[in-house]
């Protein structure tokens, strides 16, 4: 808010106008920076195979929906989409259930092993998943978790956990301890105080952390391709061989993968920015 306030009350009018142009220009430029590549993907997606491999390329598609239709009619896409949603949803819930208590503990207590735990959580992202997939798959085959929604969701939860812990840690850190203490003096026990006072405050932020988990699960390919067969998720199902596919299908496949994620982020954008608690003003 500060910069805006500053701008509105700018010291020198000329300088302020100049600032405004730079400001607007920068915002527009950055929007283009994000949007143009996606637009180009869509151009290729909605072009005929000849145009996709032609040169020079037109920046306006001739609207050929053949490639997209191929994917929509591709046997199993619906089921894979459903699997993806199931896995991502379970991942969301598990990562919050395991991550939020840890985040709370990190924010409220000083205890031995705190730093070790933080580094350990981060390590999961620093070791390549493809190598972990082999022992995990052996374990799953032995205990019967192989090819289940739950099994894959557990692995995805492991990937999402650092985000869940870090985000909830910041959330709880943003809420004054005094608020909780006040509730205790009013006769609540620790748990009641948490549920009645803290939880409502952090809920939007928790949702944000859940969204991260969803996106991570949605985009994960390798573990999904190894650990599921009947229950393959959309990326694992479509991305197999996408690198080898003819150009027009490669781009259409990319779009099929990107669009649901965009839609999802659009639907939940409100929560996304509330993850540090009270950010969304």
């Amino acid at each position, binding site marked *: 808010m500060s910069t805006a306030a500053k701008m509105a009350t700018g010291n020198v009018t000329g300088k302020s106008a100049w600032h405004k142009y730079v400001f607007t220009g920068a915002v527009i430029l950055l929007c283009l920076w994000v949007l143009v*590549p996606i637009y180009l993907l869509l151009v290729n997606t909605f072009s005929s195979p000849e145009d996709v491999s032609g*040169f020079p390329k037109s920046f306006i598609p001739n609207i050929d929906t053949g490639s997209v239709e191929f994917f929509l009619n591709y046997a199993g896409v619906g089921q894979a989409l459903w699997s993806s949603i199931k896995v991502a949803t379970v991942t969301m819930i598990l990562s919050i259930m395991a991550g939020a208590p840890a985040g709370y503990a990190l924010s409220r207590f000083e205890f031995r092993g705190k730093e070790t735990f933080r580094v350990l959580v981060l390590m*999961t992202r620093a070791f390549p998943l*493809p190598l*972990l997939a082999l022992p995990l798959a052996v374990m799953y085959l032995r205990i019967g978790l192989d090819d289940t929604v739950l099994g894959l969701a557990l692995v995805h939860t492991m990937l999402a956990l650092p985000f869940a812990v870090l985000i909830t840690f*910041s959330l709880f850190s943003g809420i004054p301890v005094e608020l909780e203490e006040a509730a205790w003096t009013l006769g609540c026990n620790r748990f009641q105080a948490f549920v009645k006072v803290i939880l409502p405050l952090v809920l939007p932020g928790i949702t944000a952390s859940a969204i991260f988990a969803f996106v991570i699960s949605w985009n994960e390919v390798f573990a999904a391709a190894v650990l599921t067969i009947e229950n393959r998720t959309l*990326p694992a199902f479509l991305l197999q061989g996408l690198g080898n596919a003819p150009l027009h299908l490669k781009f259409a496949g990319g779009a099929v993968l990107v669009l649901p994620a965009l839609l999802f982020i659009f639907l939940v*954008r*409100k929560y996304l920015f509330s993850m540090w608690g009270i950010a969304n003003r």
Partner: protein
Amino acid sequence: MYSRNLPYLLLLPATLFLCIFFLYPFVLVAWQAFVSDTGEFTSEYFMEMATHWKFNTALTNTFMLALAVVPFQIALALYMATLVNGMKRGRDLILYVWTIPLGISDLAAGIIWLAIFEQTGFLNSMLQGLGVIEQPVGFLGYQSKGTIFLAIVLAEIWRATAIVLVILVAGMGLIPKEYYEAAEVFGASRWKQFTRITLPMLKPSLQTAMILRVILAFEVFAVVVALGGTNLPILMGEIYTWQYDLRDSSVAAAYALVVLAISIAFTLLIMWGLRTPKGARV
């Protein structure tokens, strides 16, 4: 005592998770890097890795990429976050647009940027349309390592700045408005407000953002393969090669441990460099 055990109780679910789904497979994989087929401890696999002619190139490239990408991303995200905070209308929409890449996987990002940079891609189409070039330029050819590197840096910045942005925007929202109001009263310039209030108060978020980005930067893979082909060996690519083409999981594990060690080193460095003194937390 109840409250002394409480933190450990709260950490229990997450820890159990990490032990079963990370530590257990991790130990099995790491074991392979140290123990030979006959069951003896050996440094043979690390030697094989380190003396392979591609190792140094892969290590250097990975570092150079992280070095080129991460600082720029942090700066860009800081700038974007400041812009967003100074916005009166349309804040939600702009934020949504800027966070779109959050949902885009590295595979999809590789496909998108290949469409731009390949010889018959959009960039060449535009340059030719503008009359800048006579015929398409091969940006991604093996002699043009510089442009390949630049293309990868651009694609990575495009793809992964959003996560830094989200963390920083949220962190900025936590800084009490009163601080800025007070600064206004004393006539502090905007730059001064930024360096004296925003940056110090943003430390915890900056720390989180940097650690996450650095770790993910060392694992960069799909974008590099899409744009660089075999021209730019990187550590993750070597892990894949050793594991799946050369079928030597011991050397692959050694590589993975190198990635892990680098990541931990940087994490500790950032934690230490951006530590918040006790009692100074908001």
